[in-house]
């Protein structure tokens, strides 16, 4: 892993690290690390800095569903055009082109089961190129983006080990 990739992987696991801290951690001058990060942001290698949130601990936990969508690819545009028509909706949090039994995997978040179901039947299913949809509701999140949701962080080591 080169320094650039090391910085990326550190930021991916903790976006709150400052350039000064990163510089110490990877053993490079702060100015160089600042420039590396700025370059990575401007060439869109770094697209954003998101927090990993367990919404279950709040009063406004959204409903998350994973939709398998089968579509007909369009001449000259493949899957990109239809994918775009789907992922532009704010409710769509992730959208992937897949190999296997279906084409697009769409992850949707909305306020309620009904909202999700309505969104699928109103906005996705009626699209011309969509052949079928199958909706799976997510019941519990165990791990997301490398973060475990229910891990116990306690240190059960002895107080002093020489």
């Amino acid at each position, binding site marked *: 892993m080169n320094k650039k990739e090391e910085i990326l992987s550190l930021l991916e696991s903790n976006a709150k690290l400052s350039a000064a801290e990163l510089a110490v951690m990877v053993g490079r001058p702060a100015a160089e690390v600042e420039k590396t990060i700025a370059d990575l942001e401007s060439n869109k290698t770094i697209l954003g800095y998101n927090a990993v949130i367990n919404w279950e601990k709040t009063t406004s936990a959204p409903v998350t569903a994973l939709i398998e969508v089968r579509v007909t690819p369009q001449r000259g545009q493949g899957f990109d055009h239809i994918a775009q028509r789907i992922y532009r909706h704010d409710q769509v949090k992730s959208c992937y082109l897949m190999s296997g039994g279906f084409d697009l995997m769409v992850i949707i978040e909305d306020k309620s089961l009904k909202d999700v179901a309505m969104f699928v039947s109103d906005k996705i299913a009626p699209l011309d190129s969509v052949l079928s949809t199958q909706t799976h509701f997510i019941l519990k999140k165990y791990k997301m983006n490398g973060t475990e949701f229910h891990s116990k962080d306690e240190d059960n080591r002895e107080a002093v*080990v020489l």
Partner: protein
Amino acid sequence: MNVDALLSDKVKAIPPSAIRRFFDLANEMKGQVISLSIGEPDFVTPWAIREAGIYSLETGNTHYSPNQGFIELREAISHYMKRRFHLQYAPKTQVVVTVGGSEAIDIAVRAVINPGDEVIIPEPCFVAYKNCVLMAGGVPVTIPLRAEDNFVLKPDQLKAALSEKTKMIMLGYPNNPTGAVMSREQLQDLVAVIRDLPVMVLSDELYAELTYDPASHCSIAELEGMAERTILIGGFSKAFAMTGWRIGFACGPEPVLSAMNKIHQYVIMSSPTTAQDAAIEALRHSHEHITPMRDEYNRRRRLVVHACREMGLGCFEPLGAFYVFPDIRSTGLTSNEFCERFLQEEKVAIVPGNAFGECGEGFVRISYASSLENIREAMVRLKRFVERNSPK
């Protein structure tokens, strides 16, 4: 009846720890403090290794192994030593699997030392060395290492400590507590001093995989003429985060290993079977298991060294293990005072340097085997504490 009078003189001769008070205090406050006082990885054993242990139990592998350990494991150790450190050990006669590195140190000393034999021990060092020698009836001859030498043993210091009674030299590099390593050239200088003398070297290389120098770890056994007189202690605890499994090994010349195995077979019988099966998996994919942890330690190491220097604590670059050993003499506090007050006032536990030998006085051991969040917060508190305690 006075039961004390029945105790063995050897055991009674073991001095109480220099940091007993600190120990008690740290135990009392456990759970309420940030602990950078722990000499074991904060990582849990990598899942693939744990899974191999579970599978071992599942298949009913719950019996004794051969005394020296399963031959598959000894072969894996032999391959690993060759691959990583260019050392050749015959799995059948030159390897014994032990209950952690600690057992290996004990049986190595007992296999070699007669009452009255001198054992040279450079300090600061792991606390077991001296006491293992005392229990074997040997005479520890300590050498105080110097911060200005980056806690490396110098040939003139070794020469001055040698006598006709010297039987063994104990080396622990990468070092607990200082984090010091010894380069091939530095080891070569020591070898020049002892080459023609009838002494064994016990080289404790538990931290061999945790070095942060591009020139990776060099074992003294690699140097010409040294394999036949070096007992090399290795283990799984530090590199693979397997402390609780209690598994390590010793390699060395056949006569010594055979003598060590005599003790091992009567005292231990054989190392835990589950741990041996897990250790085989550890060695099979050693690089994948070790690299991510080592990279993480290295980043934390740089953070702690940088923080210590920024707040004005003298600190050489520790290139091994997971410890930083800063000089706290500028505060005018003793190591014990520093650590006790830091614990009480700022709720962070670090270890007084004198726990590892008198010459560790004036230093403290900070372990960076702790989460990044803990380390960041502890360094903020350390800075505050040092500022408060610096002479105006």
